[in-house]
């Protein structure tokens, strides 16, 4: 069975509307959780593009999230506008991904995992020491930007802003994975050697995908800095990479939507379970193990199996 595009579009529209008007029905804390889910969902999606479509399992995606966050922190402190909030962090993410990608895409598999991890940890180590980045305290008091003359501030405006960016990223990535370029990435995931043999410069495609993923991760990092009002070296730490991996696998690799669901599951588990017990990581760990063993397709895979839907 195949979902028709119209159903997909309507589903997205309804969901988007629900997410937009969410603050009208719920209090501050649930709204904050929702925004956090959207931001981490964007970050996880940018990793899913690499993992789920191009077959590049990166363990250093925090590099771009962190770089985006730091650039936003510096730029917004100087001038809280759209350039510092969106343009510069995205460009910084792209540039970092270009530099790291040029080296990392030379190798694949475990070596790719280790190289990306090493690069991100180097950035972490640097940020942790660099006094101009606030060293271990990071940058605090990051202001939220004014867009088109409207300060996003604390209330509904910031919510609309985050929802818009996240929704825009979802639509963009949906197009990308269905484009000729996206199909090439899937071909590379399925059989890299054969793609090379029929004439695709595989490394160039992988680098492009890596830069695209880095750009969106940079954007997510910027939103996170704006959301939390600060950015610390933790954003660059390997745990931030690991969490994105967890979200993608939990939600369902290669589905994009799964990355957002995985982010939701992760953040809800974290915040809800942690109110009852400090051992939320244990619960998350068990959940993760159960998913990998019994639902390797993640949340999306399990849903598809149950109601017989296919992408």
């Amino acid at each position, binding site marked *: 069975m195949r979902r028709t595009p119209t159903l997909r579009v309507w589903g997205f529209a309804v969901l988007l509307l629900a997410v937009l008007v969410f603050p009208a029905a719920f209090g501050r804390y649930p709204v904050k959780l929702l925004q956090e889910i959207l931001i981490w969902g964007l970050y996880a999606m940018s990793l899913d593009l690499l993992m789920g479509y191009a077959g590049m399992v990166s363990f250093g995606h925090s590099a771009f999230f962190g770089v985006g966050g730091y650039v936003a922190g510096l730029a917004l402190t100087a001038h809280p506008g759209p350039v510092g909030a969106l343009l510069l962090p995205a460009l910084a993410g792209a540039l970092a991904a270009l530099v790291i990608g040029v080296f990392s895409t030379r190798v694949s598999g475990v070596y790719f995992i280790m190289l990306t991890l090493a690069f991100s940890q180097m950035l972490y180590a640097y940020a942790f020491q660099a006094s101009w980045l606030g060293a271990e305290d990071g940058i605090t008091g990051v202001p939220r930007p004014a867009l088109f003359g409207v300060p996003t501030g604390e209330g509904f405006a910031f919510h609309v802003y985050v929802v818009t960016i996240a929704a825009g990223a979802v639509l963009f990535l949906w197009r990308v994975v269905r484009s000729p370029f996206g199909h090439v990435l899937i071909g590379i995931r399925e059989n890299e050697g*054969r793609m090379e043999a029929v004439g695709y*410069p595989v490394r160039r495609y992988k680098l492009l995908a890596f830069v695209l993923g880095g750009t969106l991760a940079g954007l997510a990092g910027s939103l996170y800095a704006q959301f939390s009002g600060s950015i610390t070296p933790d954003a660059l730490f390997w745990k931030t990479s690991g969490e994105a991996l967890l979200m993608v696998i939990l939600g369902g690799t290669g589905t994009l939507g799964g990355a957002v669901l995985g982010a939701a599951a992760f953040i809800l588990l974290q915040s809800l379970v942690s109110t009852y017990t400090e051992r939320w990581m244990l619960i998350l760990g068990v959940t993760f193990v159960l998913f990998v063993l019994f639902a390797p397709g993640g949340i999306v895979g399990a849903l598809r199996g149950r109601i017989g839907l296919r992408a």
Partner: protein
Amino acid sequence: MTDSPALALDGLRRSFGALTAVNGVTLSVAPRERRAIIGPNGAGKTTLFNLITGHLAPTAGRILFEGAPVAGLPPHAVARRGISRSFQRTNVFPRLPVRENLRLAAAARGRGSYRMLGSVGRLWVPIERARGAAEAVGLTDRLDVPAGALSYGEQRQLEIGIALATDPKLLLLDEPTAGMSPEETHRMTSLLAGLPRAITLLIIEHDMDVVFTLADRITVLHYGEVLAEGTAAEVRADPRVYEVYLGGE
């Protein structure tokens, strides 16, 4: 037509440590020619293919395709010049439908594949070429089947189809009938015989019936060197060939 060869190998050599798999091979294949490469296991046939397609770099020697050197180019660049190959071990995209297997191959050369926002369905040239390749290898009825669900024989057909979909000028086929039943071999042979004559063919093959049916000329490799070369009749009559290869059948 000019006499300049489609493919010319000149003193081609490749060593792996102490082992020299291809040892000074010089040969020339005319445009539109169908050439079979035969020889016992370990004669260096597949290594020769890997050298031509850029999967291996030669230790010494030259490879000229339509007069231009291609030795040392990466595989994708060689493929873009118009050299395509099938593999001895089936090398398809098992989880993708046959249609997409062929379309990906057909779209490899154009620049359209860098488009991040366009729709795949609007790039007509690869879709048409994929359809043509499906027809040529007899998979028109199986377009929506994942490649991994095809029978072994059909996967071998797809293997050829992928190579063909790139619209090559020179097609290298590495044991196209490997592991096939007699009926499948028969089908594959007539399929290969029906390929457009404009494509220059280089075929590694063990089945002598297939070789004698398809090849205009035959090159016999032995320990990485050219032992004999000629028409089927000439090669059959050569006592050295009989001794090292045909006699063992």
